[in-house]
């Protein structure tokens, strides 16, 4: 690969494609050479994917996982942003609440599984609650930090033009904090996608996480296990690419150093 800072137009597509193909070849060779009858070859995985497609499971499971992530994640934004604004805006509130937030934040959402089941039973709600928990704290913390880091010069300018406190919040503080908040949103979405897989292994009977565990339990279908893993990877990548597009919106682009 050339080290030039301006890669030619085909490069961003061709190089990853080559790496991917190389990995597939190595994978196929390793399966062949080791003579394993447990781990599937790329071809059998592809056949597994076709089987899922024909049974109508593929889109249903992807859709179920996305729906759980969507609901849990949107709830986390709906509650996390106001909470973060409050903590960032009132240093006094932050002094009281922030230590608790910082203590809860490093707890893996997986650790909450038993609690989630007690609270919501085995089912969708428990899974969505875990996703919410995983996404909530990064959103709160990034919003709080974003508000705190708004340069005082912007607030002063806003007050100078006679803005009410509410207008100052919506017209100055929020747009000024938005780039940092988006970083938190992106991290939170990544975590949500990690958590949904774990949650579906335990709490529900559909979705990609369920597919992984079910394919293994019901007849050691490792072709389907690997197919599910690949679907998880591709969908996660698509989610990340989608949320990164928000960083190039003109009203937030100033906050991202590398965005062209």
């Amino acid at each position, binding site marked *: 690969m050339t080290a030039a800072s301006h890669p030619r137009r085909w490069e961003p597509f061709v190089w990853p494609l080559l790496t991917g193909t190389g990995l597939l070849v190595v994978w196929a060779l390793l399966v062949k050479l080791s003579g394993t009858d447990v781990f599937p070859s790329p071809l059998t995985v592809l056949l597994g994917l076709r089987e899922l497609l024909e049974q109508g499971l593929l889109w249903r499971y992807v859709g179920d996982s996305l729906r759980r992530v969507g609901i849990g994640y949107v709830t986390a934004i709906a509650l996390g942003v106001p909470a973060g604004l409050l903590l960032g805006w009132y240093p006094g509130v932050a002094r009281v609440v922030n230590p608790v937030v910082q203590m809860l934040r490093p707890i893996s959402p997986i650790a909450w599984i038993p609690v989630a089941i007690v609270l919501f039973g085995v089912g969708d709600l428990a899974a969505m609650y875990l996703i919410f928990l995983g996404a909530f704290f990064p959103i709160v913390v990034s919003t709080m930090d974003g508000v705190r880091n708004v340069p005082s010069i912007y607030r002063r300018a806003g007050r*100078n033009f006679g803005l009410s406190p509410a207008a100052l919040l919506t*017209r100055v503080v929020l747009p000024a904090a938005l780039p940092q908040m988006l970083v938190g949103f992106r991290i939170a979405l990544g975590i949500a996608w990690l958590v949904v897989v774990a949650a579906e292994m335990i709490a529900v009977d559909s979705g990609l996480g369920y597919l992984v565990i079910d394919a293994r339990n019901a007849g050691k279908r490792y072709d389907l296990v690997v197919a599910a893993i690949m679907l998880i990877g591709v969908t996660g990548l698509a989610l990340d690419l989608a949320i990164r597009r928000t960083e190039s919106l*003109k009203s*937030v682009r*100033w906050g991202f150093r590398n965005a062209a």
Partner: protein
Amino acid sequence: MTSRAEGTPAALPLEDKLRADGIGMTFERDGGSISVLENISLSVRDGEFVCLLGPSGCGKSTILNIMAGFIAPTGGEVRIDGEVVSGPDPRRIFVFQERGVFPWLTVEGNIGFGLFELAPAERERRIAHYVALVGLQGFEKAYPRDLSGGMKQRVEVARALAVKPDMLFLDEPFGALDSITRLVMRVELLRIWEAERKTIIFVTHDIDEAVQLADRVIVMSARPARIQRIVSIDIPHPRDISSRHYLELRDGILEAIGLAHKV
């Protein structure tokens, strides 16, 4: 404090736009207290262009912030149009260095920022007028990150003027610009000032800038800041900056600061 319509100002002669009486400022720090300003009294006439000149860190920005209502002084008071200043007010806009431009808004969005009480049509008209006044036609939809430092400074001046304030406070507005752009901006500022006749209080540490722009230069001492001398610059605009009188006035200020013939 921000009531614009009501209020007959207290009995004070109206020829003074702004009057500062015995302003003092003491900051508490590490148990001790530091005096930044001591007994600053001055008055500024309506429509006058006054420069506060002093070395970096002397507290001249603090005076400006007190006049604008962002900081309450620990002693004395500032009256504008006879009313005691108790907070920021849209009738008096503070212009920062170009860092004060909102990066999430376009040039238009920035200039129209303070016009939220106007009807859309009037707002459009006002924005267009001030875009033209500062020479930014064609850049209405541009974001600040795509503008040069001088253009950002124009946006900020236009944003301030658009709300039709009667005073402007400028805190070293051209300090971050290169020397050529700085000269251009001085000419522009004088042109705008002559067109709009706002009262301007301009903080700078640049002696030439002060003598080129101001009707009066208020020379401050190092901390704690006191008024050392007030110099009237009685040269009409445009000023010939190689004339003898200009050089005399400049050298007089250098002398007051204690730097005459030292370099």
